[in-house]
């Protein structure tokens, strides 16, 4: 018995050798840090003096602090607004592109371009466009509308950041949905038409079910990414005006810079828990029938 097990392990040596670098990198740079953050989240720690265990106090402090609750609210607003609009626009444009349009490849490339560009660059450009005398207000003025100082107005700053993010992700969503649409067999539509289904019925009963996997994919990737929003805020608003655009990761980084490592770690774990729950729900939804 012992000998056969030893034999199986010996035969497995090449496998272990090949996965060893990946395991090593993952353990050293992911598993161990993750455990460390978990421990620090239960301590008061400034990186110099040894961490002092305080149990769940950091979590209690954060979750009873109106300021942090506002930060969570901002982050959720960013996620919900972005996810309510972005993928819908992407699907709509994919459906249009999936008609027999000319220049489909050109449109696809144009839409996809912002996805290739770093969020930092996108945010830098949009910061300029949003200026009081910037392009957006100039375009509005030609239609006789007057804008506002978008990024300095507490009611518009966060929506403005959302719009920039939707603009950046639009092409990705379009391309993903277009690929998925093209993988739905034509015969399904022919069959639906024979049964007398109109355009909307076809969309409802053929297209949407055919896209189920891709819709779940887009929302899983999108929600996980959106909860981690940081780059745009760092460049465009630094969380201002007031704390109206401050998000969880922005707060985490600032607490880290202020050497409140226990608090920063607790924020990281709150984020981790939110994302784990969201992923679980979405994957269960995706399994379905």
């Amino acid at each position, binding site marked *: 018995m012992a000998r056969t097990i030893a034999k199986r392990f010996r035969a497995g040596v090449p496998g272990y050798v090949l996965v060893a670098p990946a395991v090593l*990198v993952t353990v050293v740079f992911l598993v161990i840090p*993750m455990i460390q953050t978990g421990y620090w989240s239960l301590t008061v720690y400034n990186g110099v003096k040894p961490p002092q265990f305080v149990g769940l106090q950091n979590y209690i402090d954060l979750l009873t602090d109106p300021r942090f609750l506002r930060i969570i609210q901002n982050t959720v607003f960013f996620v919900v607004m972005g996810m309510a609009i972005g993928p819908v626009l992407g699907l709509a444009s994919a459906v249009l592109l999936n008609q027999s349009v000319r220049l489909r490849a050109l449109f696809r490339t144009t839409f996809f371009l912002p996805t290739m560009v770093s969020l930092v*660059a996108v945010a*830098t450009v949009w910061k*300029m466009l949003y200026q009081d005398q910037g392009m957006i207000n100039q375009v509005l003025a030609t239609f006789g509308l007057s804008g506002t100082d978008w990024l300095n107005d507490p009611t518009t700053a966060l929506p403005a950041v959302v719009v920039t993010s939707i603009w950046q992700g639009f092409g990705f969503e379009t391309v993903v949905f277009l*690929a998925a649409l093209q*993988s739905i067999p034509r015969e399904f539509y022919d069959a639906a038409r024979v049964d007398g289904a109109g355009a909307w019925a076809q969309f409802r009963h053929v297209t949407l079910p055919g896209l189920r996997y891709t819709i779940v*994919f887009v929302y899983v990737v999108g929600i996980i990414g959106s909860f981690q929003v940081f780059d745009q805020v760092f460049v465009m608003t630094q969380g201002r005006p007031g704390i109206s655009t401050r998000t969880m990761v922005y707060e985490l980084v600032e607490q880290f810079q202020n050497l409140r490592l226990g608090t920063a770690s607790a924020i990281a774990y709150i984020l981790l828990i939110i994302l784990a729950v969201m992923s679980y729900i979405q994957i269960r939804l995706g399994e379905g029938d």
Partner: protein
Amino acid sequence: MRRSLPARVGIYAVLLAAAVAMVLPFWWALTTSFKLPGDIFSGSPIPDPFTLANYQDVFRRLPFPTYFLNSVIVSGLVVGLNVIFGTAAAYAFAKLRFPGRDLIFFLFLLTLMVPFQVNLIPLYRIMVELHKIVPAIGVDTYFGIVAPGAVQVFGIFLMRQFLRSIPDEVLESARIDGASEWRILRSIVFPLAGPGIATLAIFTFIAAWNDFLWPLVVTNSDAMRTLPVGLALLARRNTVVWGQTMAGTVVAVAPMVIVFLLLQRRFIEGLTAGAVKDVG
């Protein structure tokens, strides 16, 4: 299916409007970078007079060639390491048998749930400590920027799916000929996995080229900063000199846009990998 004329006009009008919305910010950034400071908010879509002064000024103030070189080195290393180690691990998970294989793979998949920010602070501390022991690695070095992303689990997952399509008979006959697993990996798996490796390389290249939070945290000298970090610090400092900021943006964005336009089909496939369920 042919649609009525008004329907077709409507479709093109909507698509055209979307295309304008996607291109206009790029155009605005580009033209602003060629405008004189007084013309920035003139509203003119064409710079008049045309100037290169913004580029000269921003290059004088900040070492953009260094940022560019750093971005190239960092992205190159990340791509190289992921292709080698990611493919090796994926091959083992897809084609070799060893006790604990499926458990290890499952644990790998679980780590996909962990957002990077959870590891940020301990990673930084590790890099600070490493730097004290060996100055060439750790904080503010290429090693420090690259190491945490050297093997990305999503890449292993992607390659495993891909390598499963290589027939076992090919590998079996090489084994009968006495080839070692390392030899098989080098002379059979890598060549056959070409398209998969291209996808993996593009995916990791884009992520590494655009990565921001970690390079921001782990670098503290201009000599080590990458393009997004250099640009973000410029954009944050500069709220007035938009011509220079846009010149910096154009320099940061142009290489990626050019590479994308040259290789766009592969890029789109690379970035959307995993998004459509395989029918086969």
